[in-house]
C-alpha cells in the first residue's frame, strides 16, 4: 500500500441515473444500461457528446463501445473494466477519478446493468460452468465438486465461523435485514417499498444454506445504474451540487481468494476491506468518527458485521453489540443503507449504493439523516474490493 495517495478530494460525482428496479424489466440489458447512462448524463446537465470515458465491471455484458454508440457519445479516450463482481463497484469511481486527474478524460461514466432475475440468475452460482484448464476455472475445483456452488454457500462458511468465534447469533445477522427493509419501506424506488419485516419474519424464513436464512440473502434484480464523474473544478459549472470523492481505494488482501479466503489464519475478518479502510483514512486524515452515514455492502447480511469492524466503527467481534444498540437505524450513530440496501432496494452490484451515498451528501435521500457531511460506501465482500468516502465540497 502506497503512503503517497494524492487523490484527496480529487473527483466529484456530478450525475446519477438509474432505471426502475424490478424482477422482469422486459427490455434488453443493453437498453437498461443506455437508459441509466442517459439519465445520469442528463442529471449532470451534460450531453452524451461531452462524455469521453467509461468504466464498468468485467462482469458486465454491455460493451462500453456499444453503450457509447447508442448514446451518440462519439469518441472515447478512456475505457476500463474492473474484475471481481461486486468488489468492483467503488473501484469504478476510483478509475474515473484517476482518469480525470491524469487528464486522459474529462467526464467519465461508470455503469452496471443486467437482467439478473429475469435473465441469468446470479443466485444459481457456478453450476453448469464447463471446467477449463485455466486458473480461474480451476479455482472452483476445490468447491464445485463438493456442492459448494453459490455465493450464499461461500459466504455461509465464513458466517458459521464468525458466529462460533464471537458469540453472535442469527438474529444479529437478521437485524441488518430488518434495518434494510425498514429503510426500503419508505423508498418508493425500492423493490420492497412498503414491505418492512420483523426479526421474527427473518427467523422464520427458510434456510437457504445454514446459517443463512432466506432473508439474509439479497435479491436478484433487473436494472441499471450509472454515475458521472469529473474533477471538482469542472463540477462547479454543472447542474447538481458536486459530491466530492474525498478518497477512493481498492484492496486485495494477503492470501486472497475469490469468495473463498478460507485458508488464512483467521477467517472472521475482511483484511482486504481493512486495507481499503486504511487508505481512505490515510488519504483524508479522517476517521470513522467523521462519518455520519454509510452504505455497507449487503449481498448477505453476515458480512456487514466485519465491515463495521474493519472501518473502526466498533471493535473486532463487537459489531453484534453495535447493531443491537440500534446504531445502524435512522436516528442512530451510523444509519446504514438508507435506500434499503441491496436486500431492500435492488442488487445492482453496489452501484445503486454509490448513488444513494451521492443523494445523502446532496441531502436528497428519502431517508435523509440530518447533518451528513461524510458518507462511506463499500463494495463487495470476500472478493478483492473497494470503497469511496464521499463528502460535501
Amino acid at each position, binding site marked *: 500500500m502506497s503512503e503517497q495517495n494524492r487523490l484527496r478530494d480529487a473527483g466529484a460525482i456530478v450525475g446519477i441515473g438509474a432505471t426502475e428496479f424490478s424482477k422482469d424489466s422486459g427490455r434488453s440489458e443493453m437498453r437498461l444500461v443506455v437508459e441509466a447512462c442517459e439519465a445520469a448524463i442528463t442529471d449532470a446537465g451534460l450531453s452524451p457528446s461531452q462524455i469521453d470515458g467509461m468504466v464498468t465491471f468485467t462482469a458486465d455484458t454491455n460493451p462500453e463501445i456499444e453503450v457509447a454508440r447508442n448514446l451518440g457519445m462519439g469518441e472515447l479516450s478512456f475505457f476500463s473494466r474492473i474484475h471481481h463482481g461486486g468488489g468492483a463497484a467503488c473501484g469504478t469511481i476510483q478509475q474515473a477519478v484517476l482518469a480525470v486527474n491524469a487528464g486522459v478524460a474529462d467526464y467519465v461514466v461508470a455503469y452496471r446493468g443486467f437482467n439478473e432475475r429475469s435473465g441469468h440468475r446470479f*443466485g*444459481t*452460482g*457456478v*453450476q*453448469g*460452468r464447463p*471446467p*477449463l*484448464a*485455466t*486458473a480461474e*476455472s*480451476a*479455482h*472452483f*475445483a*476445490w*468447491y*464445485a*465438486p*463438493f*456442492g*459448494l*456452488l*453459490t455465493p450464499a*454457500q461461500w459466504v*455461509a*462458511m*465464513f458466517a*458459521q*465461523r464468525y458466529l*462460533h468465534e464471537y458469540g453472535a447469533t442469527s438474529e444479529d445477522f437478521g437485524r441488518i435485514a430488518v434495518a434494510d427493509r425498514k429503510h426500503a419501506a419508505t423508498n418508493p424506488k425500492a423493490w420492497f417499498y412498503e414491505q418492512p419485516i420483523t426479526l421474527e419474519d427473518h427467523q422464520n424464513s*427458510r*434456510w*437457504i*444454506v*445454514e*446459517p443463512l436464512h432466506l432473508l439474509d440473502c439479497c435479491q436478484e434484480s433487473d436494472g441499471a445504474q450509472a454515475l458521472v464523474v469529473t474533477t471538482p473544478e469542472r463540477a462547479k459549472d454543472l447542474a447538481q451540487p458536486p459530491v466530492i470523492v474525498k478518497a477512493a481505494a481498492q484492496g486485495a488482501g494477503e492470501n486472497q*481468494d475469490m469468495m*473463498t479466503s*478460507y*485458508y488464512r489464519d483467521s*477467517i472472521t475478518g475482511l483484511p482486504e476491506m481493512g486495507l481499503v479502510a486504511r487508505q481512505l483514512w490515510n488519504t483524508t486524515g479522517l476517521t470513522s468518527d467523521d462519518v455520519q452515514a454509510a452504505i455497507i455492502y449487503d449481498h448477505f447480511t453476515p458480512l456487514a458485521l466485519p465491515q463495521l469492524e474493519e472501518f473502526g466503527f466498533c471493535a473486532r467481534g463487537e459489531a453484534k453489540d453495535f447493531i443491537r444498540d440500534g446504531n445502524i437505524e435512522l436516528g442512530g450513530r451510523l444509519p446504514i443503507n438508507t435506500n434499503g440496501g441491496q436486500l431492500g432496494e435492488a442488487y445492482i452490484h453496489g452501484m445503486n449504493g454509490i448513488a444513494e451515498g451521492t443523494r445523502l451528501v446532496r441531502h436528497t435521500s428519502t431517508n435523509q439523516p440530518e447533518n451528513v457531511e461524510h458518507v462511506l460506501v463499500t463494495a463487495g465482500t470476500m472478493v478483492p474490493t473497494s470503497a469511496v468516502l464521499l463528502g460535501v465540497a
Partner: protein
Amino acid sequence: MTTTDTDEQAAFLTKLRAFQGTEAGTEVGADPVNQAMIRHWVEAMGDQNPVYVDPDAAAQSVHGQVIAPAVMLQAWVMRGIRGRPAQGGSPRDELMGMLDDAGFSSVVATNSEQEYDRMLHLGDHLRTRTVIDSVSEEKHTGLGVGHFVTTRVEYETTEGEPVGRMLFRILKFKPGTGRSAAPSDDAARRPLRPRPALTQDNAFFFDGAKQHRLLIQRCAQCGRLRHPPGPRCPRCGSYEWNAQEASGRGTVYSFVVNHYPQVPAFEYPLAVGLIELEEGTRLVANVVGIDPSDVAVGLAVEVEWLDEDPDLTLPAFKPRA
C-alpha cells in the same frame, strides 16, 4: 479394511489384470450393411436425413450414395437375441465368469466411445476383433462395489479394411453394496457431480484421490505444505514440489448445510465442511456419516472416499471413531 482383505483383493486384481491386452475373440456380422436395417434405425431415432434412405438425394450429397448412420457401427456386428455361443471359452467370457464367481454378478454398461474411419455403404460386411483393454481396481460406486472392465473392439470389413473402433466400458458390481441396499432409480439416474477443472498445478490431488490418497502439496525445498496448491512456494520461492500423503485426520473448522438451490447431482440437505487437517492445511469437503444437523465446529473427523463415478473420486470426512 483389514490387511487380509487388501491382500486378497490385490491377488484377485492381479488375476483379473492378466486378461489385459488379451484377444477376446472375433465375430462376423449376420448381415451386410443393408437398407432395411438402416430404415428401421432412422425411423426409431426420428432422423429424417434423406442421405440414409433416398438413393437420389444421397447421390446428390457429398457421399454420392446411401450411407449408414455412423453411430450404427456397433449394430452391424451385434449378437442380438442369438445370445452367446453355447460353449463360451473366450477370454472375455472367462473374465466375466471369474467376476460372477467372486460376487460381482451385476452388470451395467457405463459408457462407450466410438471412432470412425469412413462412412459405411450398402453391402459393406463387417467383422470385429475384441481386445480386453483394462480392468480397474475395486471401486466403491453409487451402485455398489465393483470393477470397471473396458474392451476395445476393432471394426473392419470382411476384406480387412479398418472402418472404426469402439471402447466399451461396463461395471461389474456386487448387488446390494451401493448407497442403499436397493439402489433407487433416482440414484442411478443422478447426474454426475460438477467436474473439477484440472491444470498442471492441481491434477495430482484428484489423481491421488482416485487411489484413495489424500495429498497435500509440499515445497521440495523448504517443506512447507500448501493448499490450494500452486506452482511456486510463496515462502521460499521454489518451483519444485512434491506431495505428502495426509493422515486423513482433522477437525471441522467451519461448515455449512446447503438447502437451496438443489442441484440434481447432490442429495440435500448437504453438509460441506472446511476441514483443518492434522498437518495444518485446510480443505473443503463433504461431511458424511452424520446427520447434517449434528455437524459442529471442532468435530473430530477422518477421511473417507466417495467414488462418485469412473472419473471422479473425492475425499469426504466422517466423525472419527
